[in-house]
């Protein structure tokens, strides 16, 4: 017998955890859109943010102050990365930049744990995980909260990019780097802003993921969850990151529940990748990605 209510519950659970994926993916998209870098260090930044925040709170810093301090540190980190790593690599092929961020992720992970230690920290952000009962379907309160935070973050960024000068510059750079340079936009400043934004996203995602999984090294591995999301949605589309995240979340949960038993479970690790790959073979730039026109 097919249980529709159970299906809905699985689906909603999947969609909500998908929001968490979207949140990580947005950090990627921001940077990719403006500088063509697939920032593998996004996961490490997330770990760094969460670990810094937790350690500050554990050492008795008030919640709000810790949040501000971490924010400041993330902004500084973002600007430093732009200065020290990306600026010297300007005009290099994208894959070189990617490998540089791979190195960067090692540096940040190492530094975070050298600084704050390797033990697992619990993170309490004041939202309980007691499920809601909505028309017979149980929904996690925490998931809803996370979805709300992600939603407002996206709204905030949208407003920012639509109505501020920096936002306008960001869009211009995303559209055409050379043209943006030609009209006198200073790319490094835009990039610094973008890395700052990515740092903020990393902080928010780090806190939410940290509250869910505990703050530990494996937190940086959420980057691997975000990659199929990006592939599915296209590396350069915020809409794609959101839709992709929701899709991957839903597919993962549905596959685990309905397909997993045939394989003995554990297919969460790669189901998302297989789905993303299958889509790629049909649409090589993802669902919302810009089609690349090859110029010769």
């Amino acid at each position: 017998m097919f249980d529709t209510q159970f299906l809905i519950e699985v689906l909603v659970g999947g969609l909500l955890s998908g929001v968490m994926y979207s949140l990580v993916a947005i950090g990627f998209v921001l940077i990719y859109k403006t500088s063509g870098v697939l920032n593998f260090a996004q996961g490490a930044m997330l770990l760094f943010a969460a670990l810094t925040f937790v350690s500050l709170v554990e050492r008795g810093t008030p919640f709000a102050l810790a949040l501000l301090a971490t924010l400041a540190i993330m902004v500084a980190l973002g600007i430093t990365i732009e200065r020290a790593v990306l600026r010297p690599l300007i005009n290099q092929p994208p894959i070189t930049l990617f490998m540089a961020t791979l190195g960067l992720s090692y540096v940040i992970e190492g530094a975070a744990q050298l600084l704050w230690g390797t033990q697992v920290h619990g993170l309490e952000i004041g939202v309980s995980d007691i499920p809601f009962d909505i028309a017979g379907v149980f929904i996690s309160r925490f998931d809803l909260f996370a979805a709300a935070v992600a939603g407002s973050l996206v709204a905030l960024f949208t407003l920012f990019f639509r109505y501020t000068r920096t936002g306008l510059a960001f869009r211009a750079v995303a559209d055409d780097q050379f043209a943006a340079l030609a009209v006198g936009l200073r790319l490094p400043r835009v990039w610094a802003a973008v890395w700052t934004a990515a740092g903020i996203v990393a902080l928010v995602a780090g806190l939410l993921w940290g509250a869910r999984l505990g703050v530990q090294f494996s937190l940086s591995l959420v980057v691997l969850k975000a990659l199929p999301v990006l592939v599915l949605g296209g590396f350069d589309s915020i809409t794609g990151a959101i839709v992709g995240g929701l899709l991957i979340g839903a597919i993962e949960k549905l596959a685990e529940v309905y397909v997993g038993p045939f394989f003995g479970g554990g297919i969460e690790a790669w189901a998302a990748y297989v789905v993303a790959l299958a889509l790629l073979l049909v649409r090589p730039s993802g669902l919302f990605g810009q089609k690349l026109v090859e110029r010769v």
Partner: protein
Amino acid sequence: MTTITETTVAPTRLSWLTPNLLGVALLLLLGYGLVPWIGSDYLMDAVLTPFLALALAAIGLNVLTGYAGQVSLGSAAFLAVGAYAAYNLNLRLPSLPLLADIVLAGAIAAAVGIVFGLPSLRLRGFYLAVSTLAAQFFVQWALTKFGWFSNDNASGVIDAPVIRIGSLSFTSATGRYVFSLSIVAVATALTARLLASQIGRNFIAVRDHEVAAKVIGVPLLRTKLLAFGISSFLIGVAGVLWAFAYLRTVEPAGFNLDRSFQILFIIIIGGLASLRGAFIGAAFIVVFPLLLSRLGAALLGSVFDSGVLEMSQRIVIGALIIAFLIAEPRGLVALIDRAVAAARRLRSSQS
């Protein structure tokens, strides 16, 4: 990636008779004639054998990434396929000699590599890199999930058989080192030969300008799949060495993403599109942690425990990757070449 080139070995016929060949002969002489007699077991077991296995894996990845320009983040998966395939061939077809097991294991890894290389026909750059991650996760999952691969060991652990060829058995540290050296030497020679042929030129053509390669009539499909196949074959054989000659007991978790990155780092640090680079990079990756731990212990004493060592190792390796990409994208091999050239100039100006 297009700017990364091997300057010293332009594959022309004359280069066979250069000092390069002499150098290789000298190294082999050292490797066979001197090291087994004077090297300690520790040196051969903990340094040279893993160095050889990693160097071979790096050569494999270099064929794919350095020469053919297809980035892969799933090398460890093919190490694992090689190791587990050889284990099962040895277990289930006991009549086959071990050398045949090794070659077949490489072939199986090549087949798996070709399957995961199929997306490369449509995907490029990051999209392809992400798709090779699928290989990484899938293989690791399958080896843990299906007991058959590990002869029903609960956690997928396998114990390597004794390496025996004919009546010779290679059980001692020296024996396993000599065995690895022989396999790596033969595999490297064959790879060098292949890279100097039309196939090697096709690889570079696909890497440097895919459209032009297509116009000229380089078969893109065949060339890319061949790169995946050869690369996975070499990495698969390296996996056999890793499992049979070095660790002797392996589990799927040992072939994780960090291992894949390690091999990628070897070729970035050593030098992309260079066979020497693979060896130099592998030597660096093996020796560097040992040096760092000695140095750390000497400078900081007991504060420098294994946790601190691991973290500082990560930081230094990561920073080195960035530094090399910025300052010398052609890796250590280019630095060494430049140092040698400078030394020669100095000598000639003095005389």
